[in-house]
Every structure is written in C-alpha cells, then in structure tokens.
C-alpha cells in the first residue's frame, strides 16, 4: 500500500515536470515567461556550480536560523513567565491579541531606515513574525496542563521551579514543537521576503537580480531552490515534532493561529 502510494506520488511529480516541459514547448505560454523544465534544470545546474549561489544560500540559512533561534528562546521564556506569574496572562491577553496580527512586513520601511541591507534587517522581520507563533503555542500548551497533575505536584511540595521542570514543561513541549514547526515555515517566508524587497544578501536578493536582468530560467531555478528549502524545513520540523509527540498519549488537534 505504502509502495503504491509512493509510486503514485512519483508519477504525479513526473507528470508535473513533464507538463512544465510540454506547456511552453507547445506554445501554450511564451517560453520567455515560462521556460521548459529542461531549461530550468540547466539553469539550476549553472547555479549549483556558482560559488556566489552557495554564499547566498548560506546567507539565507543564517538569517533563517538565527532569527528562528532568537524567536524560539524569547517565545518560550515569555510564554512560561506569562503562564507562571499570577494574573500576568489576563493582563497581557489584550496586548498579545493586538500585536500578533500586525503584519511583520509593515516593519519593512523601518528596517530599511534603521539597518539598510544588513542581516539585522532580516532578523527584525523574522523574529517579529515567528515569535508570536511560538509564544501562542507555548501558552496553549501550558494551559493544557492537567489540573490533577498540577495539584499532585503541589501536594508533594514541589516548588515553582520543579513544577515547571517536571509538570509544565513536559505537557507544553509538544505544543512548543508545533509552534516551532509553524515558526520555521514563517521564518523562511520572511527571510526570503526581506531579501527580495529590501535587498539584504541571500537567495531572495539573487531572485530579484535575476528578475531585473531578465534571466528568467535562473529566476525559476532559484525559486525551485527556495521550494526545496521550504520542503526540507517542513519535513525536518515535522519529524522533530513527531518525536516530541511520541509519548504524548492524546492526539490533539492543531490550534489555529
């Protein structure tokens, strides 16, 4: 069954690539706008041989990883503190509800003025966007702590720190992992956006250059690279999440954020 699904999926992918080859060749769209698969593959080969491409990939990954790490630490710490300190949750709820939906791209002009095309520009957008994903999931996770477990811990005289360590954190961990998965995807989107719009060095900037210099196949090749990057990040994050979930007996629905 699994083998069949794999074969069907491979067939689907092959059909997709073939379609990409056939549509411009048959003249259904102009191949100046939509080059056939083979030409994109050729351009991809050229990119892979170019050291500037690897530098750009490194820049993108750096922006993504540093931004995600900062957001994750800040989000988890803030989430736990808000949940543990009495009344802090109620007091911060309205502020969080207001700040969270503010689109991080609104900060682009500010980032340009403050940091120009430096890495810090990218980080400002990435951290702002991914922080909320992790914070919200952490809050949900802590809210899910079984009151009986919490009372048991209290009745055995566990202190605040021990309760966080042994009751709160294990319950919240799967949620934090879900937050991390969502944040990883968002962080990539914002990294590429910042590079594309602001011109901070990286794959996004390379796409913008390819666009302005009319190197259409290269542009598509770079887009494919960002897609593969996104896919790898998704798959990686999901497998990490599954490992964190393995011991968690209840299968819970994903919280929409």
């Amino acid at each position, binding site marked *: 069954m699994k083998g069949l699904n794999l074969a069907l999926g491979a067939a689907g992918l092959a059909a997709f690539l073939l379609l990409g080859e056939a549509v411009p060749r048959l003249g259904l769209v102009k191949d100046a706008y939509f080059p056939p698969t083979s030409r994109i593959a050729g351009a991809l080969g050229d990119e892979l041989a170019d050291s500037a491409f690897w530098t750009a990939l490194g820049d993108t990954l750096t922006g993504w990883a540093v931004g995600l790490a900062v957001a994750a630490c800040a989000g988890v710490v803030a989430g736990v503190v808000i949940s543990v300190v009495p009344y802090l949750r109620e007091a911060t709820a309205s502020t969080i509800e*207001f700040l969270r939906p503010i689109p991080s791209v609104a900060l682009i002009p500010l980032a340009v003025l403050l940091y120009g095309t430096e890495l810090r520009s990218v980080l400002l957008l990435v951290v702002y966007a991914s922080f909320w994903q992790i914070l919200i999931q952490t809050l949900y996770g802590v809210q899910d702590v079984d009151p009986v477990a919490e009372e048991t811990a209290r009745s055995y005289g566990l202190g605040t720190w021990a309760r966080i360590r042994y009751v709160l954190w294990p319950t919240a961990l799967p949620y934090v992992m879900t937050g991390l998965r969502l944040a990883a995807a968002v962080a990539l989107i914002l990294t590429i956006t910042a590079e*594309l719009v602001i011109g901070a060095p990286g794959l996004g900037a390379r796409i913008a250059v390819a666009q302005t210099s009319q190197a259409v196949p290269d542009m598509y090749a770079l887009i494919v690279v960002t897609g593969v990057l996104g896919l790898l990040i998704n798959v990686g994050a999901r497998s990490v999440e599954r490992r964190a979930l393995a011991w968690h007996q209840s299968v819970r629905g994903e919280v929409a954020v």
Partner: protein
Amino acid sequence: MRRFLLRLVFVLTLPAILLAVWWAASDSSTDVYWPPLRTILKTFPDVWTVERLRTDAVPSILRLSAGYATAALVGVALGTVIGSYRRVRAVCEPVLEFLRAVPPPVLVPVIMLFAGIGHTMKILVIAIGCVWPILLNTVEGVRAVDSVMAETARSYGVTGLARLRHVVLPSASPQIFAGLRQALSIGIILMVISEMFAASNGLGFTVVQFQRGFAIPDMWTGILVLGLLGFLLSVVFQLVERRVLGWYHGLRATTRRSR
C-alpha cells in the same frame, strides 16, 4: 458588574502602560528615525484623510478580498475533490507539498512576468499564495471524516451533494478554518509587498513612498495603519469563525471538561 470592571482593568492596563512608556521615552527624542509619539499622532489625521483612505486603503483591501476569496473557493473545491479520492490524493500530494513549501513572496516576480504590474498581478499573487494552506487543510479535513459518521450518512441514504453539504464539509470545517487563518496572514503579507514592488497606489506603496521621501512621522503612521488593518481583519475573521464553528468550540469544551 465587579467582574466586568476587573476584566476591563486587565484588558486596558498593559496597553495603557505601554503607550505611556512609548510617549514618555520618545517625547524628547531627537533621533529622526524615532520621532516622538506626540508627533506621530499629530501627523496621523493630516496624512490619513478620507481622500487618502479612498485612494490607498480601499484598493488594497479590495485586491486582498478578491485574491483571498478566489483562493478560498478554489482551495476548498479542489481540496474536497482531492481529499475524497485516495488515489488522486496519492498522485497530487508530493507536488502540492512542494508548491506549498515555496515561500509565497517569490511569486511576485514570476506573476509580474505574466500579468504585468496591474491589479491582476496583485490579485493573482494573493490568490496563488493563499491557496495552498487552504487546499492542503481541506484535503486533510475531508480525508479525516469520522468512519461512524460516514456510515451513518450512508445507512440513512444521505449521499451525493447532501452528503457533501451536511456531512463532509461541516466535518472538515475546523481544518478548513485553520487553513483560512494561515492564508489570511499570508494574504496580508502579499498585499503589502506586491504593492511595494510595483504599484501606483495602495498601503504598501504609500508607506514605502514615505520612507523613500524620509517623511519619517508619516511612515510611522503608515506602519500604524497596516498594524490596525491586520488587527481588524483578524477580529473579523474571529467573529466569522466563532459563528461558523460555534458547535466545534462547544464540543471541544465539553470533551475537555469530561476528560
């Protein structure tokens, strides 16, 4: 009454403190990039006149609505078809996973090739960027219709369109709304950056114009407007979601309590 007042205090205190801190800290600011909040607020009514809202905010919101609605329709319809047939799903899944993983902003240069820099480009960018989370969540939700519910429907002769309308889509609706929620934030991002790239009006265009012209307080008011728009759209979304998924929240609250 007392509880209501207490809640009001909780809701208002922190925002009030934050605003006060911003006000006080920036009041004597001479840094051009961080103008005093006083200046920003004073600039606000001058910049965001009714005329300005009509020429910039309305086109942005219309384009966002058109793209988002298209994505929702196409995503739910296609997702229902793909989710209903196991084989179709197996064929499409890898391709869809890849397309979803492509960061949506890179669509802007691609769509510009095809559709120029007009309204069509922006609507297409928003629609194509938003469709994947909706599509994939719909597939997941339609696939996961409970087996007992499906058998109940079958044994009582609920088939065809009625099954779709009364059983499959409601059962998938929590998942569909999760997708719509993700798509909304992507849609706003795409609305803004497609206007930053190439436009003659729109919120994204205006904010970048202010920044390029070093009209810093004006730029700050633009950031505030974008933030406000994001917040308002999220409130509207939540209202709709509460209404449509009222049963789901009730059900979850009941199972949570009985656990």
